[in-house]
């Protein structure tokens, strides 16, 4: 009696989660194997398992091991973390605003983070751009929060607590912040190239320092968002009905927005502006598991990680030995998908 119907759908969703974990692992392994220097697959697998206790073996020589651990592994790890952050925050924004087109670029979160990071880059701390400058993520997060607070303030003055007001305010704030960012960038021509490369998105220079830098922010914000999955489903009923079910919608939305903005800021700080991940991944997930955020949020994290690992793989192989900016790859895949989505949502309404 208890699980007459729930059983079937739960079983399916658990299977989907397991498959997603498998896909992330396979994508990551593939990305570790592909590169200018050929690393044997059995050697890489042995090397990876050597981390486990009681497993003996070194499948690679010292030089190969250095390539694996110092060049490829941190890049794959960073792609996982950044992809997960962007996809989860996209799913969270879409839930909190009940708007399928919402993403980290809405509400000025990413634009604010971009402005913060640009200011950090041009004002000297940019010199130590390469890796591990703690100024960059902090400047990004401050920028993201400034962006979101401004959107909140403007949206609030426009018509109170409605999500439409907030979304429109977010668009306006984002355009403004992007304009300011462009201005700051143009005024500092000596760092123009550096800033520009960063904006297009980069995982190329990734080292473990970058991973370590954003991991705490990523883990904290993703955990908070995972815990809000069920509440986002309630929020899907609209503020009034959510309130009649005992929730305080404004409070839930605030918690979700702060966490999602933190995740966005973390991703932007180390990887630049990588678009569309936050919109295409949650939507693809929704097509498979349906509308419940209890499943969409965790699956978006996994699929976002896999997606960005694969996009980065494409970025460094398509024009090898050259490299495409990863933001270009995600945009090439994301823009048509977004257009398709617009058409579909247009037809529904």
């Amino acid at each position, binding site marked *: 009696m208890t699980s007459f119907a729930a059983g079937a759908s739960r079983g399916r969703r658990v299977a989907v989660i397991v498959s997603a974990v498998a896909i992330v692992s396979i994508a990551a392994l593939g990305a570790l194997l592909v590169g200018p220097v050929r690393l044997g697959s059995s050697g890489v697998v042995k090397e990876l398992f050597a981390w486990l206790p009681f497993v003996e073996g070194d499948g690679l020589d010292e030089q190969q091991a250095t390539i694996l651990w110092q060049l490829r592994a941190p890049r794959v790890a960073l792609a996982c973390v950044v992809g997960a952050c962007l996809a989860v925050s996209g799913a969270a924004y879409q839930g909190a605003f009940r708007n399928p087109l919402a993403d980290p670029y809405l509400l000025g979160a990413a634009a604010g983070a971009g402005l913060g990071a640009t200011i950090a880059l041009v004002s000297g701390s940019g010199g130590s751009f390469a890796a591990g400058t703690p100024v960059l993520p902090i400047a990004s997060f401050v920028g993201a929060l400034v962006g979101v607070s401004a959107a909140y303030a403007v949206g609030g003055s426009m018509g109170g607590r409605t999500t439409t007001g907030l979304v429109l305010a977010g668009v306006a704030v984002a355009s403004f912040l992007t304009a300011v960012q462009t201005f700051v960038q143009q005024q500092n021509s000596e760092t123009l190239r550096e800033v520009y490369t960063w904006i297009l998105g980069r995982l190329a220079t990734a080292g473990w320092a970058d991973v370590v830098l954003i991991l705490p922010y990523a883990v904290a914000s993703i955990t908070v968002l995972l815990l809000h999955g069920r509440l986002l*489903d309630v929020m*899907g009923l609209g503020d009034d009905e959510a309130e*009649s079910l005992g929730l305080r919608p404004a409070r839930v939305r605030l918690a979700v927005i702060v966490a999602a903005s933190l995740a966005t800021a973390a991703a932007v700080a180390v990887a630049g502006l990588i678009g569309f991940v936050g919109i295409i991944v949650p939507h693809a997930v929704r097509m498979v598991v349906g*509308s419940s955020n209890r499943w969409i949020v965790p699956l978006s994290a996994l699929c976002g990680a896999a997606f960005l690992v694969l996009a980065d793989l494409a970025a460094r192989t398509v024009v090898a030995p050259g490299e495409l900016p990863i933001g270009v790859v995600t945009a090439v895949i994301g823009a048509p998908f977004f257009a398709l989505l617009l058409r579909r949502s247009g037809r529904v309404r």
Partner: protein
Amino acid sequence: MNLELRDIGVDLAGREVVRSVSCTVTDGGWLVVLGPNGAGKSTLLRAIAGLEEHRGQVLMDGGDTATLHRRDLAARVALVVQKPTVPDGVTVLDYVTLGRTPHISYFGSVGARDRDIVADVLGALDLRDVALRPLASLSGGESQRVFVARALAQEPSILLLDEPTTSLDVGRQQDVLELIESLRRDRGVTVVAALHDLSLAGQFADRLLLLHEGNQVAEGVPSEVLTEQVVREFFGASVRLVPVDGSGHVLVPVRRSGAAGRP
């Protein structure tokens, strides 16, 4: 649960939308709030549900609901709004499960007991066969049953329904009202419903409250409130009351031009 409204008043955007409404609904009773469009029916229901700030007191078994936490109130009072939001792609099962929200802690998850209650409600409302279907794919009558099911999953003592029969054809209107009647009988839920169909209201309610421009103009058992004179005065309609076996009176609209020749 006994529900008492004491001198309820609500202001919206500086305008007094509901003015000193007072009445009592006994445990397991059915109060229907009547009134022309814009009379303040929805606002009154929202005030009872704690969604609008109001003057006066809402008492449940003598206790003031203003002292209850949002969540505790939601565990006692369920509101079915006039046009519930249907999230994109949501299944009937997931939608009804949302009704368990007041019984689950903030970061908690849906437990075995919650699933039992949802299964029970789906069974009682004959919705098991459609449990995994998208809610948006159901007919108007079925959807209305699902909205009521979500409210029942809240296990409320008081069920508030805002125009539960609008946009349904006559047969489905009767289905919904009979369903509510059976819930009231079998589960002892106290019902407060806003309706605009006077005939149906008169047959199902055990008390009526008539609002007009936010004022309480009549309150009592149907035979006291629903008179030809009241309907003419507040609804601008010419009607005749016709007795029906066992279930009071029904109202029959009468052509105004012919009214001159009436006995």
